[in-house]
């Protein structure tokens, strides 16, 4: 049933709104505002990292060299791909293509899960090399400035941990959306939910780009 109207602009209007346009616009605006707060939540840690990256330049650059750039880049590529699948899911659901939407959602979830798996492997790797100064675990750093390197790894675990938490929230959210899409009870509403969670997922992507660039790439 091809229509010119996208699916997310159909369906019932909530009682506080006058029309569906007002509702869709309000939801979008609310989500963007929420994402600005997410940016600033990470922003506090970013600001701290940037300050110390400037004062302890040498030590931080050397410490960054102890991270696995290969796995980090692979993870970034995976996450960018999941951004693509999610954006496609948003398009497909608006064209009322349920099966294709479901496939794209599941692909996004799979890519996100692999990301988490690789991240976990990296953490384990750092744990084995005694580079995980968490909960009083031994920190044995082979290079110069071991204290400042510890500070770097403190930031590393804080930022990747915070980002990982957001990934898990996103994965939970997408799983719920996938189930709703599978059931297909209230398609216009599902279309709106896919759109809103797509925004969240893409933004977690953006945050990872910053985290990755700050931690892994500033190694000189």
């Amino acid at each position, binding site marked *: 049933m091809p229509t010119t109207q996208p699916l997310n602009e159909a369906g019932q209007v909530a009682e506080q709104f006058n029309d569906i346009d007002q509702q869709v616009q309000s939801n979008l*605006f609310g989500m963007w505002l929420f994402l600005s707060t997410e940016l600033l939540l990470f922003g506090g840690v970013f600001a701290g990292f940037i300050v110390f990256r400037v004062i302890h330049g040498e030590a931080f650059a050397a410490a960054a060299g102890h991270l696995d750039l290969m796995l980090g880049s692979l993870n970034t590529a995976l996450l960018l791909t999941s951004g693509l699948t999610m954006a496609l899911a948003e398009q497909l659901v608006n064209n009322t293509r349920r099966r294709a939407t479901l496939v794209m959602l599941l692909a996004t979830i799979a890519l996100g899960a692999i990301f988490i798996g690789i991240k976990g492997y990296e953490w384990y790797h750092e744990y084995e090399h005694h580079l995980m100064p968490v909960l009083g675990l031994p920190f044995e750093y082979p290079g110069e400035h071991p204290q400042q390197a510890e500070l770097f790894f403190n930031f590393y675990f804080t930022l990747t941990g915070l980002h990982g938490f957001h990934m898990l929230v996103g994965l939970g959210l997408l799983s719920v959306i996938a189930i709703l899409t599978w059931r297909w009870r209230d398609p216009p509403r599902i279309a709106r939910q896919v759109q809103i969670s797509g925004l969240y997922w893409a933004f977690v992507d953006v945050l990872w780009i910053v985290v990755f660039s700050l931690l892994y790439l500033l190694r000189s």
Partner: protein
Amino acid sequence: MTDYRLYLLTWLALLALLACAVAATHWLAGWLAWTTVALCALAMASLVIILFMGLRHANALLRVFGVGGVLWLGFLVVLTLADYLTR
């Protein structure tokens, strides 16, 4: 819809930028490496925000608030650094 094609192209551009940034850390040093990494990151983030998140279709209001969030993070970073750099 043509958007599928556009999204695929965006994805390819993102991967190219990622490769560019990683290559910069290998072959460049100092401020040159920093600038390349920062520009690539900025370009990647902008591509995701503008295309995947649909900011290009969004109205002025969303753009203002999108830019506002970044600007406020800028206040935080710049004024904090202003202290550390003049100690």
